[in-house]
């Protein structure tokens, strides 16, 4: 069934925009034939094609691939020559140069092979990247200058001293220098020197060898500076290229000589230059550093593992020491603070816990607000109410009296009236008494008000209690087993013997043992209130003792370890 069928059934004429439907069908004609449920779904779509085509993944990919933007102009790329430095010409591909330019370039490259270097260099425009090719400018000096400024600082170097025969590489470097055109003067000097060297005898005694390693000739220095210039102070390359002529020179030797000479040179030029200190080079430190590094890198895997383990161990020790210290402090603090005499057992239930929590919270806040006074503020309204109650009682009594008196003697009524007047006076006076205290209440915070309410409630409760128990004396009360507690209790019934405090298993064992030593049972015979109070206190003290012992042992062990 297709959508057209539905249209037929519903008697709807086929939608007008025929061309609109044609176009998408035209565009979607190349899509692969759909089968199964998909085809049925397509059929249901009819003319109301959704904006997003339902199609398989592979189809989607081909559909949404971006079409090639062919209308852009083709950009030519040319293999253009460029001059990275003065004595070489290289080619690289450049984008977007014009046909002419490229032609010119190709021509020039054609020519290049035929023409000599100088000509090419002139023809070529300077490379764009030339500005980034920066070399450090190193001082240049003649032998006389060198001797001059070096003599200022150190002993005059023995230039005349014989050196090893210059070998081929020095000559090649000289050639290079000549070619580069930079430091021509130095190059010339070196040439002259190398000529001089050539005349010297190459044989040197081993005795002198060590001394020679420390002393630098002008030529050697010059060679070093050339290498520095040539390789942009890349010391490893310099060290590699440096021809030490039989002298063993380390990388540090080279560096130190370079900085020494540079410093001497600039010192001569301007002794007050603030940058002079930056030319200090501590050879021994550098060697030390390298040795350290070498040792660090030369460690075996086992050594590394051991080291890490040791570090972890030391950390553990530190943490443990800190914790024990804290614990000890806490314990000592605890021991100095007064003990609570009450049983913990009533806080063991969840209800008890929440009660304790709230009470602690309120305690805290109270402390913060009244650091000095712990007492609950008296509620003036309560006072007043009590006063009123008393007065009411008095009134009632008097009424009673009045009635009796009325029966007896009507004459005395006057007196009674006087009495009631007195009471009225009292009434009128008493509110005045309480007035000054009222403003203070209005200032009190919400928290305090709550406390007041609680206190009021408590008082009303205790008042009721008193009323209930008023007929019993103290002795009678103990005989009745009635006790009025200060705090709210967990309502319910229990056996007193079940409220013997208990501890954590490890501690409980210690306490049990201690009790055995003391010759007391864990459960007293007479589990009366008084006995239980003492028992609880004893157990608490025993627990304290056990705790203290533990810490003392720890301390002892620590001292032992430190010894």
């Amino acid at each position, binding site marked *: 069934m297709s959508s057209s069928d539905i249209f037929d059934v519903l008697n709807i004429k086929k939608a007008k925009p025929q061309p609109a439907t044609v176009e998408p069908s035209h565009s979607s004609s190349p899509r692969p034939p759909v089968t199964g449920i998909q085809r049925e779904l397509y059929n249901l779509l009819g003319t109301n094609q959704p904006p997003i085509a339902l199609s398989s993944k592979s189809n989607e990919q081909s559909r949404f691939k971006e079409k090639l933007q062919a209308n852009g102009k083709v950009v030519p790329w040319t293999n253009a020559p460029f001059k990275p430095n003065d004595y070489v010409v290289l080619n690289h591909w450049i984008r977007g140069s014009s046909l002419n330019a490229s032609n010119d370039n190709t021509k020039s490259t054609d020519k290049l092979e035929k023409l000599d270097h100088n000509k090419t260099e002139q023809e070529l425009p300077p490379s764009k990247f030339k500005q980034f090719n920066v070399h450090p400018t190193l001082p240049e000096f003649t032998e006389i200058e060198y001797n001059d400024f070096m003599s200022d600082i150190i002993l005059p170097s023995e230039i005349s001293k014989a050196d090893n025969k210059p070998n081929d590489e020095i000559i090649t470097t000289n050639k290079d220098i000549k070619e580069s055109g930079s430091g021509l003067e130095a190059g010339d000097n070196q040439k002259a020197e190398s000529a001089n060297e050539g005349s010297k005898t190459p044989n040197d005694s081993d005795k002198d060898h060590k001394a020679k390693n420390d002393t630098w000739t002008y030529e050697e220095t010059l060679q070093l500076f050339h290498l520095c210039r040539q390789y942009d102070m890349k010391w490893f390359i310099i060290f590699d290229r440096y021809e030490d002529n039989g002298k063993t020179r380390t990388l540090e030797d080279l560096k130190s000589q370079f900085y020494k000479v540079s410093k001497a040179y600039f010192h001569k030029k301007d002794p007050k230059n603030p940058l002079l200190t930056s030319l200090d080079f501590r050879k021994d430190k550098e060697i030390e550093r390298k040795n350290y590094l070498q040792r660090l890198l030369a460690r075996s895997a086992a050594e590394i593992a051991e080291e890490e383990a040791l570090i972890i161990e030391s950390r553990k020790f530190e943490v443990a020491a800190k914790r024990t210290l804290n614990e000890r402090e806490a314990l000592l603090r605890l021991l100095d603070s007064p003990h609570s005499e009450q049983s913990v057992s009533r806080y063991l239930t969840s209800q008890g816990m929440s009660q304790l929590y709230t009470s602690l919270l309120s305690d805290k806040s109270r402390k913060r607000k009244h650091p000095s006074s712990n007492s609950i503020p008296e509620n003036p309204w309560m006072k007043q109410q009590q006063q009123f109650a008393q007065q009411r009682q008095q009134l009632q009594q008097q009424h009673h009296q009045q009635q009796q008196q009325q029966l007896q003697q009507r004459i005395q009524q006057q007196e009674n009236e006087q009495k009631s007047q007195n009471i009225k006076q009292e009434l009128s006076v008493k509110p005045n008494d309480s007035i000054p205290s009222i403003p203070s209440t209005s200032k009190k915070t919400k928290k305090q008000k709550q406390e007041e309410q609680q206190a009021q409630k408590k008082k009303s409760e205790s008042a009721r209690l008193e009323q209930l128990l008023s007929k019993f004396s103290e002795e009678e009360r103990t005989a009745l087993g009635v006790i009025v507690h200060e705090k709210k209790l967990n309502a319910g*019934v229990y056996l007193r013997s079940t409220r013997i405090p208990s501890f954590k298993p490890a501690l409980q064992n210690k306490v049990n043992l*201690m009790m055995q030593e003391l010759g*007391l049972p864990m459960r007293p015979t007479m589990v*009366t209130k008084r006995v239980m109070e003492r028992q609880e206190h*004893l157990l608490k*003290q025993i627990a304290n003792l056990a705790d*203290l012992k533990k810490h003392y042992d720890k301390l002892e062990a620590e001292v032992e370890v430190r010894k």
Partner: protein
Amino acid sequence: MAPPHNKRIKTLSVSRPFIYGNTAKKIGSIRPPNAPPEHTHIWKLFIKGLNNDDISYFIKKVVVKLHDTYPNPIRTLETPPFEITETGWGEFEINIKIYFIDSSNEKFLNFYHHLRLHPYKTPNQIASTEEASTATTTTENSNNATTKDEGKNDNSKKQDDDIVSSVIYDEIIFNEPNETFLNVLLSKPGNYLPSNSEEINEKNIVNGTIFSKQLESDEIDRINLRIDTVEKEINELKEKIKERLASK
């Protein structure tokens, strides 16, 4: 809001001492008619007030659960005296549930009593338990120093007539009872302890008359003595620790 008489009275607690325990005797020549042949002892479990005081004014019933091997192991004792006599051959834990009168609105109290049938060999032999050993010291300290290990939570002893007893003193505490129940409780001086112990003998133990103020203060003295020793030790240790810390 609940009616006022059902409101719990805050911060008030009422205690009621009572004793529970059992006596046991070997079955002699007179064997109860329905006792199985393997039963060797006849025992009696009881829950009662001190000095046979009435406790039924606040206790509705006592439900006792015996060992499963007994026929109808759950026995309900609806009326005083709350006691049950049975025969048996072995000791076991008896589960006791005390239900209070309806107006109390309290849950039942649940605890166990170890039925004791066999006496300890000799009172001085610290044979079975810690309690036994401490029981001995107890009597030595108390005025009624006898060789019998009495006055302890597990009063068990062998007498000439072979009666073994295990009587335990405990107190039921009603925290914040409601007003009606309080009035019920206050109707009798249930917490009254006799000032002096009566002579320790089987009858008095079973009656609970040995539990007295005198015994109480003896026990308090004993505990106080131990508290002193422990506190002394604590102070010594404290000093030691302080020294150590200072020397470090």
